[in-house]
């Protein structure tokens, strides 16, 4: 885990410095979110542009869409919105929908999907470690970067531990079938928490033993060339162009 999202490819997107990619992704999402949903032509343009960038990054579309499924629980309520609400109603096939709800719901789904696709391109073309370095470079508080990088390091260790506990449970004939077994699972989760907490203390001790004083080593900062800035900022810039053009056309 941790590096599972990364897809090793050689592309211009993969080779760009991670902090630039983070900046570009956030800028693109900001542009997409601030576009009014009624300007639907702009969103078509955004989607096409996202797919083009994914293609440049050599990310297979099937992978892109499979990973995008992660947003379904989050947009579930947005899908329900047209069915509840107030104001003007209209009939679409068998459904009797609220216009306001439909527009708001569609806005959430469309903008959410654009954000998720952008995040997928970022995480598929950048290792988790690199993203953390990028965030560090962007002056995210060092403590937050440290916590995230520890999580990255120990998620496997804790996972293995959990797996071993499960094997040990199962070996003694335990099978979680119903409500009455939750007590056992809750106890196991508690034990895992205590173990992880204690491991945290041991890790801290070993860090102190090697002279830790609150700062993790980090690489010397190297400046990115203007050309890479230019290239990576194409991502949000094209979105702005789409926005401007579609707005102008819409106003005519």
């Amino acid at each position, binding site marked *: 885990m941790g590096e599972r999202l990364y897809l090793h490819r050689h592309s211009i997107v993969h080779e760009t410095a991670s902090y630039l990619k983070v900046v570009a992704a956030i800028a693109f999402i900001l542009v997409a979110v601030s576009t009014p949903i009624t300007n639907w032509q702009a969103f078509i343009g955004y989607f096409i542009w996202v797919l083009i960038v994914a293609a440049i990054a050599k990310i297979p579309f099937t992978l892109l869409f499979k990973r995008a499924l992660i947003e379904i629980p989050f947009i579930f309520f947005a899908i329900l919105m047209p069915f509840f609400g107030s104001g003007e109603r209209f009939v679409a096939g068998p459904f009797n929908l609220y216009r306001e709800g439909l527009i708001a719901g569609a806005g959430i789904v469309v903008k959410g999907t654009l954000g998720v696709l952008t995040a997928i391109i970022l995480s598929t073309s950048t290792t988790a470690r690199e993203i953390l370095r990028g965030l560090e470079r962007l002056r995210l508080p060092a403590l937050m970067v440290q916590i995230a990088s520890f999580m990255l*390091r120990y998620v496997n260790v804790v996972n293995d531990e959990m797996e071993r506990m499960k094997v040990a449970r199962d070996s003694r004939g335990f099978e979680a079938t119903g409500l009455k077994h939750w007590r056992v699972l809750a106890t196991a989760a508690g034990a895992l928490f205590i173990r992880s907490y204690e491991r945290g203390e*041991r*890790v801290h*001790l070993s860090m102190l*033993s*090697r*002279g830790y004083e609150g700062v*993790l*080593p980090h690489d010397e900062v190297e400046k990115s060339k203007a050309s890479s800035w230019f290239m990576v900022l194409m991502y949000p810039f094209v979105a702005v162009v789409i926005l401007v053009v579609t707005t102008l056309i819409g106003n005519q």
Partner: protein
Amino acid sequence: MTTPSLEIKELAFAYPDGNQALFGVNLSINKGERVALLGPNGAGKTTLVMHMNGIHPTAQGSVRIAGELVDAKNKESLKKIRSKVGIVFQDPDDQLFMPTVGEDIAFGPYNMGKRGAELEALVNEALELVGMAEFKDRPPHHLSFGQRRRVAVATVLAMKPEILVLDEPSSNLDPASRRELADILRSLDITMVMVTHDLPYASELCERAVILNGGVIVADDSTRNILTNKALLAANRLELPVGFTI
């Protein structure tokens, strides 16, 4: 006479809950010695180790590393002490917390203020010493347990310690890894304290052994004399493996 690498005098310690772990420990280890610290579970071995670099503040008595007093209140001296005492913990996963092997080995020297090419050289040298040079850019969880233990040793060697303290170095290793680690440890020219229950390992690597039991040193002699003294071993819940003779 030269200053001993480690000198402990009348060290006593009680945990905050009142449980006393050490009752006046005296121990002196000279430069270049390899000493096995033996004793049953709960004898206070780990507590003693934690005093060697000031993780546990010295409440009573004194601990000196190469003549310098370990004083948990003096931040500057503590920093120096921690660069002189390299502790290899029992579980390598506790010790290796950085994303890659190379970065983890750089952690200690970095804290000592090393940067750039000098840091790089220390990392490479430490990796060479434990024969793990080709694993520099790998994440620790992709290594075998034995490899992780070796990297853990490298993480403290990179700090050029005066004294290397190993907590159960042979535990959980397969026989080949156990022997490889022994070869590495023997090749190092460094003062060494090895906490272990693995008596054959102690006899293989250490010329001197001390037994800690009930918070005091009950024996301090050549490893051979200690391991051949059946009554002494039995009194301290230590046993040689069946069929093992020295």
